[in-house]
């Protein structure tokens, strides 16, 4: 039982972080139909920027974190304006190649500045072990879980009730009709990229805080997003959140209850993914193209 709680909490933390990254990915896909292969690299850049601000420049962490987010917003806007916008109307495969290129560039820049070896990240979240119903969990994981949950809740609120959130979803549905409402499609794209980059940067900081600052590992997070969004539905925000939690839990349960020598932990999520897609081809919450005349 202790083990179960232990695994559940760990899985939920991992899953919530995955959900956060997936959410950024879905935002971009929904708003602008771009499959962003550089999502994981936004994570990495965020973590390194936080490292630079907090450790290298010695700025206290709350401000350092805000600066990181602000820098990520700028990065998102620049990427959208100068890399993706000129690609509007180009074939999907070219756009994908551009995001893959962006990913390599970001990696190269980070390793040129900070090198490739892992570094200790300042742990501003306390990692005192807590005893929860017999399971021992470091506090930073629980704080991360709570933080991510609050953030995800804020997003749900933003998309349901705020003017800009509704404008973003409207644009995702029908660009020309959104334009006819006076919604600026350009600023919606810019908003999607900047929110996405900021959220990824925050996820990067959380991961680096829990594990360590390691470029390759952080960037690799980007690939783990795919099973999550395919499971949840590429264009669904609730889907990204639920998909993240399911994959996170599945990985941890499989690792915890099967022998590591079988190496099932990374396979089982994919098996479940395939099973679900057989029943729901658009993913759990993927938007069905509504057909009516």
């Amino acid at each position: 039982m202790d083990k179960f709680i232990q695994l559940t909490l760990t899985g939920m933390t991992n899953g919530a972080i995955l959900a956060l990254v997936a959410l950024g990915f879905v935002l971009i896909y929904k708003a602008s139909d771009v499959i962003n292969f550089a999502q994981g690299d936004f994570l990495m850049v965020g973590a390194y920027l936080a490292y630079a601000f907090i450790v290298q420049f010695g700025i206290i962490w709350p401000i350092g974190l805000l600066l990181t987010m602000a820098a990520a917003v700028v990065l998102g806007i620049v990427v959208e304006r100068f890399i993706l916008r000129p690609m509007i109307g180009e074939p999907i495969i070219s756009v994908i190649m551009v995001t893959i290129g962006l990913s390599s560039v970001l990696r190269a820049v980070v390793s040129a500045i900070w090198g490739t070896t892992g570094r200790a990240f300042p742990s501003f979240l306390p990692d005192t072990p807590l005893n929860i119903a017999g399971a021992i969990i470091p506090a930073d994981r629980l704080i991360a879980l709570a933080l991510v949950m609050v953030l995800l809740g804020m997003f749900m609120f933003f998309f349901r009730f705020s003017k800009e959130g509704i404008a973003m979803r409207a644009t995702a549905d029908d660009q020309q009709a959104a334009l006819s409402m006076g919604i600026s499609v350009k600023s919606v794209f810019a908003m999607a990229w900047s929110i996405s980059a900021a959220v990824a940067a925050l996820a990067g900081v959380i991961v680096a805080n829990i594990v360590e600052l390691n470029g390759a590992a952080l960037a690799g997070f980007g690939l783990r997003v795919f099973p999550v969004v395919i499971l949840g539905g590429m264009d669904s925000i609730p889907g990204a959140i639920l998909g993240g939690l399911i994959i996170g839990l599945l990985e941890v349960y499989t690792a915890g209850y099967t022998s590591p020598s079988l190496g099932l932990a990374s396979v089982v999520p994919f098996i479940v993914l395939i099973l679900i897609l057989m029943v729901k081809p658009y993913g759990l919450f993927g938007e069905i193209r509504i057909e009516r005349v």
Partner: protein
Amino acid sequence: MLSLNNIEVIYNDVILVLKGMSLEVPQGKIVALLGSNGAGKSTTLKAVSGLLKPEDGEVTDGSITFEGEDIHHLDAADIVRRGIFQVMEGRRVFEHLDVEQNLLAGSYTRSDRGQIKADIEAVYTYFPRLKERRRQESGYLSGGEQQMLAIGRAMMAKPKLIMLDEPSLGLAPLLVRDIFDIITRINKEQGTTILLVEQNARLALDAADYAYIMENGRIVLAGDPQQLKDNADVREFYLGLNEVGTRKSYRDVKHYKRRKRWLS
């Protein structure tokens, strides 16, 4: 209020669609713009509302003025802010948003956010059916309900001029009558000026204060609705009425002549 002077519109740099189109919409009136398929009615509206750009269309000549100011270089968002709102052909509701969120999207450009709740209620008094379905995803509304939503969404922007592109498209005759009644009510009660593009000439001529008929990218006939209803060409081509007693062969010849005159 709105005037188009000799405008020319070209798609993809080569396809000339509007060829010297001129039209006036006076404040507070309902003006109908009729014409057969492909005449350029939708293009005319998009030229006014700034929606040609995403379709690679461009106004290459002439001028478009609204309340005395040139607007044809403005982008779509600025034009909505000035008070012109186009209800696009085919309803174009945001399918994955519910009814109320669609209405909110319509109010996007407004700065008086406090007033919006009351205006949503005002829209519901015109369209009680929308209120019953306020939390329903609009992709699953019936065609008529979607058209109501599209018009309600336009009202949410509090425009001075609403341009409606074929609001009767694909709706049952009874519902079309309802929609037209509501359009006239909006015009009378809210004082909103209306430019109405229609295939259903009979209803449009009943509702309008003035009407234009366009063919092949320009206006070929204009006048007050009664005058047009009495015009033999309009009766034949748009209202589907034959002059009693005319022999078929004779009519065909006349038909050809009239077409020719209109197109030249």
